[in-house]
């Protein structure tokens, strides 16, 4: 964080302290804290892991002053470890946000927002997620934000929003600034959107954004792209006055460095930089059908987040094999139908496909059945089956299936069993034959957890894999890798909860709120204390 930002943090801190002393009745200081302690380390298969009994703690403290018109906040983060490796401590977020009754709102400091559906701009945070970098080992809370301002105004049918400042891709910790001198926020963006509300809940909007485009080799000065987007949000059935079924529909088309007149051509030829997203839902009684289409070309801006049209599964093995959108070149669709013919059961069917550059293709079929007899008073559960392939990761075939069941008794007791199996085939380099070939591997996940409401839970998980690319796979291993772990959670008091982990945690991809990231494997003991005050 540079000197200006530090000064800003100081000002907000002092303002919070002063506000604490002068808080009127309808205002409050509120905070939350996450303390993460680890004793252990990455598995021996990971390079540069250091001592096996590494001890570390990460802490994130959020303090907010909340009143009827003002919201001010600070975030303090620190990462410390016994290897004395890449440690840091400091303010990573500070902002002041105020609004009035006229519909005007202004926020200064760290800001996040979304324009349209995120084709042109989306800044966001992944609450509750703590990432750990591999090369420059350090932990942090990922926040893709803008260090600048956010202004909003709404009156009648018109809503305006503007944002500007230095963006961050959210991929590094404060240690990069403190130790390497590399700022987390760099470059400059400025833009906004206007939305006009029309009758029958229809909206039209336009977005303009200026974003970094690298360095001009001729002048050695930063260049800016100009991005333009237009969208429409309507329900044709509502417009026609039909009651009962609904058909909410959204369409957005964005382009880069083109004129307003060219926008209307909806040019989707490659390599013209463009992003097109269209989505609709048919809602009819207990039947719903969701259809989405995407066409992105050269639209990975670093400050945007277009819809990926890839299902985000809650099933453990499917979540860690989610396709990651390639906004540089991807075109595809997602269709999902769900039906609840009876109050105690539902079925979901999903079909997704995306075609990218060089013939890359991702596709997936998914089906799930869920049953909730008698409102789930005694038992509920579900089964699923998924077949997919993703050539961006070399996966030529992937079959996943499993079930979960939850049983309840004596009102407060419950137990949940989750069983999943995945068999995959991957095209990769085979060292034994020095050639590209197909390898098969298998993953199994079993977890069992018991919960006593009001008190806490205890769980056990077993993962088995024969995937030689797993981060925990040690060189020379010829048998399956087994990872066992125990976890427990307990409510210590109102506002304080502890989560404990003991054993071996599997590393790899994980996806939360539509964003995927890499989770480091871990072996040892971990304690997580979440507090609110």
């Amino acid at each position, binding site marked *: 964080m540079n000197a200006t930002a530090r000064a800003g943090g100081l000002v907000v801190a002092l303002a919070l302290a002063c506000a604490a002393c002068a808080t009127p009745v309808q205002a409050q200081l509120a905070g939350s804290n996450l303390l993460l302690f680890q004793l252990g380390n990455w598995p021996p298969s990971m390079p540069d892991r250091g001592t096996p009994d590494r001890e570390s703690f990460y802490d994130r403290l959020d303090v907010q002053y*909340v009143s009827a018109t003002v919201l001010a906040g600070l975030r303090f983060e*620190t990462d410390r470890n016994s290897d*004395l490796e890449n440690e840091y401590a*400091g303010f990573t977020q500070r902002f002041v946000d105020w609004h009035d009754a006229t519909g005007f709102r202004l926020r200064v400091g760290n800001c996040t927002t979304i324009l349209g559906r995120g084709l042109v701009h989306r800044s966001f945070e992944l609450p509750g997620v703590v990432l750990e970098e591999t090369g420059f080992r350090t932990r942090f809370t990922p926040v893709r934000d803008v260090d600048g301002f956010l202004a909003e105004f709404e009156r009648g049918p018109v809503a305006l929003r503007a944002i500007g400042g230095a963006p961050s891709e959210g991929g590094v910790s404060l240690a990069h600034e403190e130790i390497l001198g590399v700022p987390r926020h760099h470059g400059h963006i400025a833009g906004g959107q206007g939305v006009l509300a029309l009758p029958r809940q229809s909206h039209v909007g336009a977005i303009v954004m200026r974003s970094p485009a690298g360095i001009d080799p001729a002048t050695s000065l930063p260049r800016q792209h100009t991005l333009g987007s237009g969208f429409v949000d309507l329900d044709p059935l509502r417009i026609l006055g039909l009651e009962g079924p609904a058909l909410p529909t959204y369409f957005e088309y964005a382009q880069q460095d083109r004129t307003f007149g060219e926008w209307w051509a909806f040019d989707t030829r490659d390599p013209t930089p463009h992003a097109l997203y269209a989505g609709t839902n048919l809602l009819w009684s207990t039947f719903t059908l969701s259809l*989405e289409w995407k066409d992105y070309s050269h639209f990975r801006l670093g400050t945007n987040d277009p819809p990926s049209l890839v299902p985000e599964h809650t099933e453990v093995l499917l979540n860690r094999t989610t396709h990651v959108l390639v906004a540089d070149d991807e075109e595809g669709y997602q269709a999902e139908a769900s039906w609840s013919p009876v109050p105690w059961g539902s079925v979901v069917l999903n079909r997704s496909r995306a075609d990218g550059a060089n013939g890359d293709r991702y596709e997936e079929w998914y089906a799930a059945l869920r049953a909730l007899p008698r409102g789930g008073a005694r038992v509920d559960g579900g089964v699923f089956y998924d077949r997919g392939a993703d050539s961006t990761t070399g996966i030529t075939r992937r079959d996943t299936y499993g079930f979960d069941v939850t049983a309840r008794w004596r009102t407060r007791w419950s137990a949940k069993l989750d069983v999943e199996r995945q068999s995959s085939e991957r095209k990769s380099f085979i060292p034994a034959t020095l050639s590209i070939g197909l390898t098969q591997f298998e993953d199994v996940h079993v977890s069992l957890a018991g919960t006593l409401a*009001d008190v806490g839970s205890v769980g056990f998980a077993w993962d088995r894999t024969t995937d030689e690319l797993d981060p925990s796979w040690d060189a020379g291993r010829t048998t399956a890798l087994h990872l066992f772990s125990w976890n427990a959670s307990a409510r210590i008091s109102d*506002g304080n909860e502890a989560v404990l982990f003991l054993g071996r945690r599997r590393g790899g991809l994980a996806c939360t709120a539509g964003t995927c990231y890499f989770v480091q494997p871990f072996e040892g003991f971990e304690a997580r204390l*979440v507090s609110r005050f």
Partner: protein
Amino acid sequence: MRLARTGPGRTPFVRRFALVLAGALGIVAHAVAAPSLERAPAPEFNARSLDGRDLRLAVLRLHGPVIVEFWATWCEPCREALTELEGWRKQYGPRGLEIVAVSVDGPRNISKVRPYVARLHLQFPVVIDEDQRIQKCYQANQMPTAFLVDRAGNIASIRVGYRRGDTSFATRLESLFRADSTAASSPR
């Protein structure tokens, strides 16, 4: 890359720590006169529900207690929590309970929210918090998280996560209704 804890980077940490300590002291000093987050004023918000209703917390709480539930389609425990809330809507709705379910699904899953709501037969208003504004005001970092707001606009209880059979939140809701009926029946 490994760097020792001592050295030029050490002093700023001490300074920052002192700064945080100073801020914390301010909070502690204030805490003598102010309650904790529970019983604190609930951050005001206005939002538009999926069915086009304009929702303002200040207006909703005029009818009775309000539950603000943060959830997402990708969150498995949220399904149970929302199902329970629908039951509470039927049970306590006639007594004035208002429920607002705030979806924190990102752009990837916005198209899933309406079908999800339809599949669970939810009748209370659902809001999509596209820019995470409401979520940040309430510091809802875990899904699901529920806030119970009383008629005065203060947070009466917070439920982080969901465990079926956990009675503390429902008990607090019942106590709010009892307090309301006591206040209504007491002579002015």
